[in-house]
């Protein structure tokens, strides 16, 4: 018994010093890619898909890497912003990552930026749409392969006007991404003469929508524009249907409303109009190939997050290729990344001065459980990058 106790104590005491023992020493040859994504909790699914997509791209394009191997350092951010600076600095100084990929959550993005702006690494955001990342807080070493929250929502204003909607209620969670999305919609919608009769901001992450929907029903606007994603999107669309608003008041949304959630939403999602920089059903060779091999490799359907991850991988591969595998010169690396044209499943895109994709935004509708592309709502749309001095 005494022996056991001693052992336990010894283990316990040594725990205190564990933080000091540096982990795996990396080989010099490999390119180190730090991955800061949520692998648990509400955003876990998004983190998974992004990672899968990125790895797939780097695997497919291994030939472009000029013999350099990729070493991944993956850390679960748990979507907890307060941990972000710490993890980011771990990847930056401890792992000396050449690229840091992340995050999904905008709050985490802000925390990462705090540490990584202007540092000797390249941060590539594969999802978080927070405006400031490629706006006032933009930085030469920060790129985004996804979108700014302005981008997918802005074109919807025009779509709504074309449909003849004059009075619209907008609604989202009360956080940066949500508010930026609503503002972008409002910007184009009111510029064309539309009126936002009510703007509802639901505390994040509340999903009790019934009270708000009842209120919308009593206002009875021409249409409703919303931003929700993930579990909230599922709940919202189901409630919208269950309370009978569907079919009476058209539902418009930023595309995330119906991304990765269609199966869970079931019939309730049919007919929703959304705008986004991608759709599963985009009919081009790259996309078809991508979807097939993703399904084969991971046993489930790909989604937008996988595409964004994939493009991140493509972008790294192409930059490494252009530099013949030597990425030690940060200026050259950034130059190479800036000028890349990514041949993405979503269609080719380039980067704006603020390092945000200049890309097509598609108008989609849900049909038979799929996001079907109706048209290009806005070709090669660039985020205005307000406040960025690059």
């Amino acid at each position, binding site marked *: 018994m005494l022996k056991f106790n001693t052992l336990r104590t010894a283990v316990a005491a040594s725990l205190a010093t564990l933080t000091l023992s540096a982990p795996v020493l990396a080989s010099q040859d490999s390119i180190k890619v730090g991955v800061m994504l949520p692998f648990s909790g509400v955003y876990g699914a998004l983190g998974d898909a992004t990672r899968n997509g990125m790895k797939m791209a780097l695997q497919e394009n291994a030939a472009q890497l000029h013999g350099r191997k990729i070493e991944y350092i993956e850390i679960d951010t748990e979507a907890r912003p307060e941990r972000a600076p710490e993890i980011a600095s771990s990847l930056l100084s401890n792992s000396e990552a050449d690229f840091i990929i992340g995050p999904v959550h905008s709050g985490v993005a802000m925390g990462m930026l705090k540490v990584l702006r202007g540092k000797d690494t390249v941060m590539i955001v594969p999802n978080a749409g927070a405006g400031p990342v490629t706006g006032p807080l933009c930085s030469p070493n920060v790129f985004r392969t996804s979108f700014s929250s302005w981008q997918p929502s802005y074109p919807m204003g025009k779509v709504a006007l074309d449909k003849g909607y004059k009075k619209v209620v907008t609604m989202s969670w009360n956080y940066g991404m949500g508010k930026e999305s609503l503002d972008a919609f409002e910007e184009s919608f009111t510029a064309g003469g539309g009126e936002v009769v009510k703007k509802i901001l639901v505390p994040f992450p*509340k*999903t009790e929508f*019934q009270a708000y929907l009842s209120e919308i029903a009593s206002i009875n606007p021409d249409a409703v524009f919303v931003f929700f994603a*993930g579990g909230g999107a*599922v709940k919202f669309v189901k409630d919208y249907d269950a309370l*009978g608003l569907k079919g009476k008041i058209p539902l418009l949304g930023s595309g995330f409303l119906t991304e990765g959630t269609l*199966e869970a939403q079931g019939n309730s999602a049919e007919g929703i109009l959304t705008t986004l920089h991608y759709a599963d059903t985009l009919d081009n060779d790259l996309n078809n190939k991508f979807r097939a091999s993703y399904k084969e490799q991971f046993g489930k359907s790909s989604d937008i997050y996988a595409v964004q991850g994939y493009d991140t991988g493509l972008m790294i591969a192409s930059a490494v290729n252009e530099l013949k595998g030597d990425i030690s010169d940060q200026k050259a690396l950034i130059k190479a990344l800036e000028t890349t044209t990514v041949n993405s499943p979503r269609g080719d895109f380039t980067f704006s001065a603020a390092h945000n994709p200049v890309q097509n935004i598609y108008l989609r509708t849900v049909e038979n459980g799929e996001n079907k592309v109706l048209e290009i709502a806005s070709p090669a749309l660039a985020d205005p990058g307000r406040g960025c001095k690059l």
Partner: protein
Amino acid sequence: MDTSLFLVQLINGLQYGLLLFLIASGLTLVFGVMGILNLAHGSMYMVGAYLAWYFVEHTGSFALSAIISAVIALIIGVVVERTLIRQLYRRNHLDQVLLTIGMIFVFNALQSLLWGNDPLGVAVPAALSSAVPLTDVLEYPVYRIFVALLCIAIAVVMYFMINKTRLGMLIRAGESNREMVECLGIDIRQLYTIVFAIGVMLAAVAGVVAAPMSSIVPGMGEHILITCFVVVVIGGMGSIKGAFVAALLVGLVDTFASVLVPQMSSMMIYIVMAFILLIKPQGLFSS
């Protein structure tokens, strides 16, 4: 707010409150009888929802899945009580808080392992999928009415069980005096196992019935857990009646706050709770 909207919101609030009661009743029952504060109660709600989804996918029948899920929840309850909770009766609340925080970690990890992190949904059973029109635009789904009635039914059953049956008598006795129950020749540990299992089952059943009208996502348990705490604390810990009144109160406050004071809506229930505790530090219906 005009009258019809007011009435609609009233229904919304009551319906939300009733669901809250269903979840909170297990929490308050376990606390009242056993003095155990189960932070992992929300995880049981999550487990119920995931089980419902899993069995609906495999059997196609919602009713059947509900029954299977409830039985599994009972078994989980018995196992958890026997192996873990049993060690804690003589410990303070702090240890209970920690143990059950540990359980939250474990349940969340298991959920992620078993079912992944994608948001999932369960279709409303066909028999209950119609809706009742309320206003020109608004309808009220039959399933939600059904859930509200079910919650009331469960409340009534609990009321009778506690006040009229032998088990209920023991539960009431166990609340006030452990020794007395033991004097009656009852093994109090058996009683505790039963009560804990029922508590877990109630949470899981709440998860099951909520599944068709919500999204099944990781972490769904924690958010509801805190709201349930508010309910249980306002009602008076251990009081089923209190939980019922408090659940309706919280449901209504939350619903109306969402519409009337949107800026403060998520703070509102906590403000109400703090206010009530300042007047009645033991909650509305404490024993």
